[in-house]
C-alpha cells in the first residue's frame, strides 16, 4: 500500500511540476514552488485518491512536507478507518 501511495503522490506532484526531481524524503516546501493553492490541491487529492478525511489536528505543514510524511499521514488515517483505501489503486490494481 505505501509503495502505491508514494507512486500516486509522486505522480500528482510531478504532474503539477514536471521539471522537479523529488526524493521521497525531500522537503517540498523548501523547493520554493508550493503555495497555498497547491497545498489545498494536495489536501483534496489525498482525501479523494485515498478515501480519507484528514482531521483538523492532522492538517499541519509537517504532514505534507515530503512524500514520506504524506504516506505516513495516509496510513494513519486508513488505520483509523479500515474501510478507507486508494480508489486509484483499486482501479489500476
Amino acid at each position: 500500500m505505501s509503495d502505491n501511495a508514494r507512486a500516486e503522490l509522486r505522480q500528482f506532484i510531478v504532474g503539477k511540476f514536471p521539471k522537479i526531481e523529488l526524493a521521497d524524503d525531500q522537503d517540498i516546501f523548501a523547493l520554493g514552488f508550493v503555495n497555498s493553492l497547491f497545498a489545498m490541491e494536495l489536501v483534496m487529492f489525498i482525501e479523494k485518491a485515498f478515501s480519507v478525511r484528514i482531521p483538523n489536528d492532522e492538517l499541519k505543514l509537517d504532514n505534507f512536507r515530503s512524500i514520506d510524511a504524506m504516506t505516513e499521514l495516509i496510513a494513519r488515517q486508513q488505520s483509523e478507518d479500515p474501510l478507507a483505501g486508494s480508489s486509484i489503486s483499486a482501479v489500476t490494481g
Partner: protein
Amino acid sequence: MNVTPELTREFVDAEVAPCAEEFDRTEQLPGSLLKQVGSLGLWAPFLPSEVGGSGTDYVTVGRLHTEIGRGCSGLRSMLTVHGMVSWSVNRWGTDEQKAQWLPELASGNTFGVFCLSEPDSSGSDSKAEGTTAEPDGEGWVLNGRKKWITGGQVADLMMVFARTGPGMSTFLVPRNAAGVEVTPLPRMMGTAASMIAEITFTDVKLGADALLGPRGWAAGTVMTGALDIGRYSVACGSLGIVQAALEASARYTAERSAGGKLLRDQPQLRAKISDMVTARDAARLLCERAGALKDADDPETIMATWIAKYHASTAATKAASDAVQIHGANGCSPDHPVARLYRDSKVMEIIEGSTELQQLTIADVAYREVAL
C-alpha cells in the same frame, strides 16, 4: 425546499431586478428580501438536508448565483460571502460547531461574512495579516481591523483570519461579542447594496471553540478553500452580468432607431452583441466545468475556477462597457440598468483574486502541459 434555477429566475424577475436600481441607490437590501432568499432556500443550498440545506450540487448552485447576479450583484455578493462561511463550517467545523451554526446558516437566520482583507494590505496579500489572536487561557484574544467586508453591516457571524504565531488561523466571531465594532463604508462604486463595512476587533475574548479548522495553517486549508467557493460564485455572478448586459442591449437595439434604421441593423452594434453572446456561452461552459469538478471533489476545480472567474469577470466588464456604449447617453443614466452593470462589473475583476493575480497564476497550466 429544493430551489431550482427556474424558480430563482422567476424570483429575480419579480422581486430583484425591478428593484435593483433602488437597492443600489439606497445602498441596502431590504430585510424582507433577505427573508425571501431564506424562504426559497437560497442562502446555502449545498448544505446537507440534515441541517436545513438541500444538498444541491455545485453546477446547480452556480446556476442559482448566475440568476441572482443577472438581477443584482449586491445580493449575489451577499450569497457569496454567506456561502463561503457556510461551506467552511461544514467542511472544517467540529461536530459542535456544525450543530451550533449550520442550521442557522442554512436558513439565513444567522448571516455569515468573510473577514480577510485589511486596511493596510492588499486583499491579495493575505500574508500581511495584521490581525492577531493571542492565546488566553484555553481561548483567544482577538485584535485587529478588517476592511471591505461584504455584508459586514448586517453580519451575525464573522469568519475572521488572524495571525496565531508563525501561521494564520480562522475564528468564528459572533457580532455581539464584546469589542466588535462595525463601521459602514458607504458610496462604493459597485455592488453598493452589499452593505460593506470595516470591522474592528478590540480585545475580543473568544473561547477555544471559536477556532475553525487547523491552528496555524488556514492559508493551505480554510482560506484557500473558502476563496475557491467565493471565486466560483463571483464567476457565476459575472456570467449573470454578461447575460443582463446582453438582454438590455438586445431589447434597446430592437426598439430604438437612428437615421431611419433600427439599431439592431447597425453592423457595429451587432458586432458588440455577437461578442456578448460568445463571451456568455464561453463563461457558462467554464463555470459549469468548474462546478462539475467541485461535485467530483477533483482538485483540478481550483485552477478551473480561477480560469472561469478570469474569463467571466473580464467578459462582464467588456459586455457592460459595450452595453453602455450601445445605449449612448441613456446608458449613463439611472433609467437603464447598464450603468449599474458597468460599475458592478469592475468590482468582479477585483474581488476573490484580481485579474492581475489570475494572469500571474493561470500561465502555470501551459508550462505543466508542455512539461517545462
